[in-house]
């Protein structure tokens, strides 16, 4: 074993993928489409969200291409509007919200708890079908001619002034919303009810904690989005007037309802990613996460406070100035738990024994970029500053830093980290390191200029812009190209590794989680014997002890 890696693979000459595992337990396409196995559903999700990521990415590419020049030359303005709307809807509702929970969460949570499956396997499968229905409808909206509301569906624009396929897209989001409600519900019940003997709350991996927090948000927030969408649909079809100022309705009411969901939704997006980072950082520094309880509780605190700050998206939109004050103050409070997490992760490294495999590189990327993204969120939460920055590219940069620089990096970290567990094979290490670095560089090139553009005043959702902004836009487009390459690479080499990757063995990272103590890929029922948890999470001494015993018994 080299000193710069903890990777510990079995002897490739003799190693084989276990004969019986969840992938080959049953055969035929139907055995996948009707499966109740959380691991198979996770794989179904993985394939579908990857598909939608590239759809969303293609729109991002088209957006950046149009913005290469100040003139509106590539497409007509309503087409451009459809681009960013579809980009936002697809990326948020069909990619980022389900990304970590529905793939990694689905796969890992039961195993991490020592359970055989999620509490409701059929509902889990139903979630996926709902997701697929939502996705199909979104594609239908796209094929039929697209929508141009923006992902925020602002009324009365969306209800009275646009004649694109708003209803189709709204229905799609409504359905996809129920998919995420059911995922959240399933997780909460599983975490409360299905823990193995000895698996107390404070022995759970932090990944489970953060998914738990995100699930609470899904269950309590999403229905409000659903009702807001129903009202938009009714307003559009029969003109009921709740959001129509000419009939005495208040258009801002929609925004209250929308952001009541959509602010917590940003934490739905980031929290599971934070869980991934906890696992990765701990494993590659061979140490328990610094301040385990603080990290666990900060997840819950984010979820709780996340419900109190939604109106920071409406600071200049006509909410009362008094309530803007309150929401601004609360926004500052919600930023603190994230800071706690970042510092705890940083101090996990202290006195560790660090190695820098690909997941760790992505995790480092996450920490740096999320810090920038989060702190620029504080700009926006600061009332006076928000006046100048709102609805400019500064916001675009802020949320891409947290969502792409933060969450997408975390997702990739997680995919690489658990790839050997999910497939039984390793990804190619040097190529993946290259991809991580390319992504990081491309990302910064794309989105750092946008902060400057934003302060200069370039409004978002602009199809054409004054010529003095061109240089920075060209930089951004160039970055997006690099970024695109950075995202294509994993696609290719991960697919390659399915057949040619090195055989990983049970525990290539020598990690402590229960998921690493079983074969890769796991059996359909995960555990032959219900495990009994008798140690803390991230107990590397326990692991060393266990390995020692195994060696003695086997040898």
């Amino acid at each position, binding site marked *: 074993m080299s000193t710069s890696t903890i990777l510990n693979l079995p002897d490739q000459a003799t190693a084989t993928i276990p004969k019986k595992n969840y992938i080959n337990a049953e055969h035929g396409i139907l055995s996948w489409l009707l499966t109740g196995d959380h691991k198979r559903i996770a794989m179904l999700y993985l394939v579908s969200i990857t598909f939608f990521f590239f759809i969303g990415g293609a729109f991002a590419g088209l957006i950046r291409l149009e913005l290469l020049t100040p003139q509106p030359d590539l497409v007509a303005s309503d087409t451009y509007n459809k681009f960013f709307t579809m980009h936002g809807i697809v990326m948020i509702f069909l990619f980022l919200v389900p990304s970590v929970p529905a793939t990694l969460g689905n796969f890992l949570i039961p195993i991490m708890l020592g*359970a055989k499956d999620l509490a*409701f396997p059929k*509902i889990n499968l139903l979630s996926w079908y709902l997701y697929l229905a939502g996705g199909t409808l979104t594609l239908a909206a796209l094929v039929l001619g697209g929508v141009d509301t923006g992902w925020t569906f602002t009324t009365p624009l969306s209800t009275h002034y646009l004649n694109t396929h708003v209803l189709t897209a709204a229905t799609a989001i409504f359905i996809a919303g129920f998919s995420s409600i059911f995922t959240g519900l399933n997780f909460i*019940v599983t975490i409360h*009810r299905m823990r193995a003997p000895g698996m107390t709350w404070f022995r759970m991996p932090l990944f489970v904690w953060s998914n738990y927090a995100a699930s609470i948000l899904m269950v309590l927030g999403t229905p*409000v989005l659903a009702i807001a969408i129903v009202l938009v649909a009714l307003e559009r079809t029969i*003109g009921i007037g709740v959001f129509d100022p000419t009939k005495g309705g208040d258009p801002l*009411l929609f925004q209250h309802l929308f952001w009541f969901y959509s602010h917590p939704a940003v934490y739905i997006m980031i929290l599971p990613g934070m869980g991934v980072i906890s696992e990765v950082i701990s494993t590659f520094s061979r140490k328990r996460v610094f301040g385990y309880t603080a990290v666990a509780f900060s997840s819950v605190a984010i979820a709780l406070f996340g419900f109190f700050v939604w109106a920071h998206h409406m600071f200049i939109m006509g909410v009362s100035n008094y309530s803007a004050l309150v929401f601004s103050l609360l926004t500052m409070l919600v930023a603190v738990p994230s800071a706690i997490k970042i510092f705890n992760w940083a101090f996990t490294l202290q006195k560790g024994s660090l190695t820098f495999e690909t997941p760790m590189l992505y995790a480092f990327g996450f920490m740096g970029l999320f810090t920038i993204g989060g702190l620029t969120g504080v700009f926006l939460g600061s009332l006076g500053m928000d006046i100048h920055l709102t609805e400019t590219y500064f916001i675009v940069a802020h949320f891409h830093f947290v969502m792409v620089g933060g969450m997408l990096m975390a997702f990739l970290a997680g995919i690489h980290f658990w790839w050997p567990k999910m497939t039984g094979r390793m990804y190619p290490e040097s190529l993946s390191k290259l991809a991580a670095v390319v992504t990081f560089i491309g990302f910064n090139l794309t989105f750092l200029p946008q902060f400057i553009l934003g302060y200069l005043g370039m409004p978002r959702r602009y199809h054409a812009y004054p010529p003095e902004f061109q240089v920075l836009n060209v930089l951004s487009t160039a970055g997006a190209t690099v970024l695109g390459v950075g995202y294509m690479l994993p696609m290719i080499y991960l697919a390659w590794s399915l057949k040619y990757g090195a055989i990983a063995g049970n525990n290539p990272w020598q990690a402590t989680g229960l998921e690493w103590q079983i074969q890769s890929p796991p059996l359909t*029922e995960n555990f032959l014997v219900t495990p009994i948890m008798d140690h803390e999470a991230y107990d590397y001494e326990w692991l060393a002890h266990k390995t020692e015993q195994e060696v003695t018994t086997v040898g």
Partner: protein
Amino acid sequence: MANTIATTHPEVVHGHHAHDEHVVLPQHRHHFETEEQQREAGSFGMWLFLLTEIMFFGGLFFAYLLYRNWYYPAFAAASNQLSVPLGAFNTVMLIASGFCMALGVWAAEVRKKGFLVLMLVLTTVFGLVFLGVKGIEYHEKFEKHHVPGASFSISEFVNPPIDAKTGKPTEEPLSPDMAQHTQLFFFLYFAMTGMHAFHMILGIGILVWLIVRAQKGEFSEGYVAPIENFGLYWHFVDIVWLFLFPLLYLINRHPLH
């Protein structure tokens, strides 16, 4: 762990031994350790689902609260168009239906099959009566042009009918701009009661299915989870109505002169 009935559950044939220590009823899903764990998971899941329902109706309740405060006279006048006797009758119907449902749960728990079926049937009947009355009320709104939309008419609020006995209008007349806002009330009325009725229709569908299964004796052998969980749902729908009734029918009612 005294019990050692070996399992013959079809899904666990690939012989692992985790199950051997537990009773395994046919409805026991293999991934639960015990049947009790399964039951508790089920009811907890149901409760979480009801949470989402609270938030779903919450949006509507908020819209109601807001516009009622903004357009109080319109809401009062429009609310007076609803029939309190019908509303009260329906409230009683729903409470009765909920009562039968609760007894049904009890019947399942103490394994009285006949009584269970009877109670489920009664629950359904009361529910259907409720929906029937709702239908009558909707129909009346339709006749009076109180359904929001193109055919909505405010004439009754601007020029209320004259009471033959007193010679005075039965209602305070509203000015036309305020009268327009009655439409918001009626929209919220239809949205809220409609959403509620939709939940009831779903519920009655499930009830019919449960009756068929109860008739086969599926729930009188100790496996009561479906009945219990459906009961939770049904009572939740009742609770929504317990708020809708005063909010829509009563709260704006001023004593008629």
